[in-house]
């Protein structure tokens, strides 16, 4: 315990003795602060309310039509007999191919740019180029696919052309997220491996990539979920809406779930709107599950040892 200095005795001064040129406005400001908080809280719940309304409306419209027949039938001119089999198979095939192409190129480019390339004007240029590519509208990738894959390379309006187009579209997303994942690996890991006599490539392959892989994977999955819902570029490369067979080769014509939904939703008849909703339930479930997996991996990643 302390002693009090002798120049201080124990009388408190009343605050009324002070005079200033300030006018008390606290009551008003308290109300303003409360209103502000209420408004931004409302804004925050707005986003969630939209999601809830969307899920509720679509379930209400489509749930009754969702059954095994719907999943295993081909599209039909009669809504009651129509199904999404060819769309599901088309989506699955295209996405699978897209992932193969985009991962091969995207992760490779990320590794090169982040780990191996000299940091000079040229790599800065490539970086700027990639960030601009990620802002190009998906529709424009469709035009690229139409001109290059459909016509120039002669893939025609095929699964192959669709997969290449989607791969080009998600390439910048994968490069950017993979580079971010690689960047979180601390330099000390690289230095430790290099100090043991490993080459730059050995260091990257044996230490850096494994350490960054959950982050890279998260980015890939998010990009894939984006590709799954995309319709515009595929319409450009010739996605059709009436396909009553399953593909035999990668150069067969194709349809996908979003294209099928676009077609049905654009028709005036109510039954078609309803089966569009049923197909949306399937699509949204797939997209959300994919997203959920990515969010889970990221959560586990965050629980792992922090560097």
């Amino acid at each position: 315990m302390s002693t009090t200095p002798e120049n201080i005795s124990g009388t408190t001064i009343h605050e009324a003795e002070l005079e200033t040129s300030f006018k008390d406005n606290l009551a008003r400001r308290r109300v303003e602060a409360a209103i502000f908080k209420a408004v931004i809280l409302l804004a925050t719940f707005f986003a969630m309310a939209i999601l809830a309304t969307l899920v509720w409306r679509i379930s209400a419209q489509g749930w009754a039509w969702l059954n095994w027949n719907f999943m295993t039938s081909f599209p039909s001119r009669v809504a009651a007999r129509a199904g999404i089999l060819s769309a599901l198979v088309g989506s699955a095939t295209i996405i699978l191919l897209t992932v193969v192409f985009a991962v091969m190129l995207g992760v490779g480019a990320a590794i090169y740019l982040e780990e191996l390339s000299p940091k000079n004007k040229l790599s800065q240029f490539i970086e700027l180029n990639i960030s601009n590519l990620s802002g190009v509208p998906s529709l424009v990738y469709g035009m690229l696919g139409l001109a290059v894959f459909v016509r120039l390379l002669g893939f025609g309006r095929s699964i192959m052309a669709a997969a290449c187009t989607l791969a080009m579209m998600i390439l910048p997303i994968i490069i950017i997220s993979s580079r971010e994942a690689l960047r979180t690996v601390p330099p000390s890991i690289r230095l430790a491996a290099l100090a043991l006599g490993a080459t730059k490539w050995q260091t990257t392959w044996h230490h850096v990539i494994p350490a960054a892989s959950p982050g890279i994977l998260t980015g890939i999955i998010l990009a894939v979920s984006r590709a799954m819902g995309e319709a515009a570029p595929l319409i450009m490369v010739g996605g059709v809406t009436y396909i009553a067979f399953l593909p035999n080769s990668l150069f067969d014509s194709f349809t996908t779930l979003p294209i099928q939904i676009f077609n049905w939703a654009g028709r005036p008849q109510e039954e078609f709107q309803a089966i569009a909703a049923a197909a949306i339930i399937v699509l949204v479930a797939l997209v959300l599950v994919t997203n959920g997996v990515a969010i889970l991996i990221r959560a586990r990643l965050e629980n792992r040892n922090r560097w």
Partner: protein
Amino acid sequence: MDIVIAAKNLTLAYGDKNIVKNVSLAVGPRTVTALIGPSGCGKSTLLRTFNRMNDFVPSFRLVSGEINYRDLNVYSEKVDPVYIRRRVGMVFQKPNPFPSSIAKNITWGPSINGFTGDYDQLVESSLRRAALWDEVKDKLNSSGLALSGGQQQRLCIARAIAMDPDVILMDEPCSALDPASTARIEDLMTDLRDRYTILIVTHNMQQAARVSENTAFMFQGEMVEYSNTKQIFNAPKQRLTEDYIMGRFG
């Protein structure tokens, strides 16, 4: 003399860890009081309770005791921390001017707090009192961030003065500054003491000796000795205080 601000048997904690233990301290008007002690002794935590800046630390708890500012219980449910901060200003360790003009830095606080006077006059008088006017009078509309570190800190002092506070809390205000800027701010404190009650946390014992009338020495959350500065530095009553002042630890 009278008491402006006081802590009574105060115990403060972050989570379960008591940072300040049963500390009492009373500060009179128009004095400079220094809080000294080694890092982690709780002096900054104590200082930040006087204007309730600890409210923003989620794990902070007031375990027992009370803080009084004049006749108000600072941590009472009925007291609005905004009101306390209106009267008890603060200058921080690192200069933190707002990224806006010098003039705006000065006028923002008063303008939201219902200032009724003339703003140009306010800017000039605050900057004069903070000994910054001559350096910035021609560039009041340029950014506060463009000033040097020492100037920024004086701008922050001017900003606090503009609120016409009763008490100014200073949390190691010179620790991020060079010696020349430090000397200017120490001079400034001596000038300001005839109008404001100043509490300063400092690592620098010479600074405490130069600027303060009273000094409180804290160690491991406890108040070891609180007394006249001359006495603390020349004839400390406690062995611990003497050891610290002689530089045997800390």
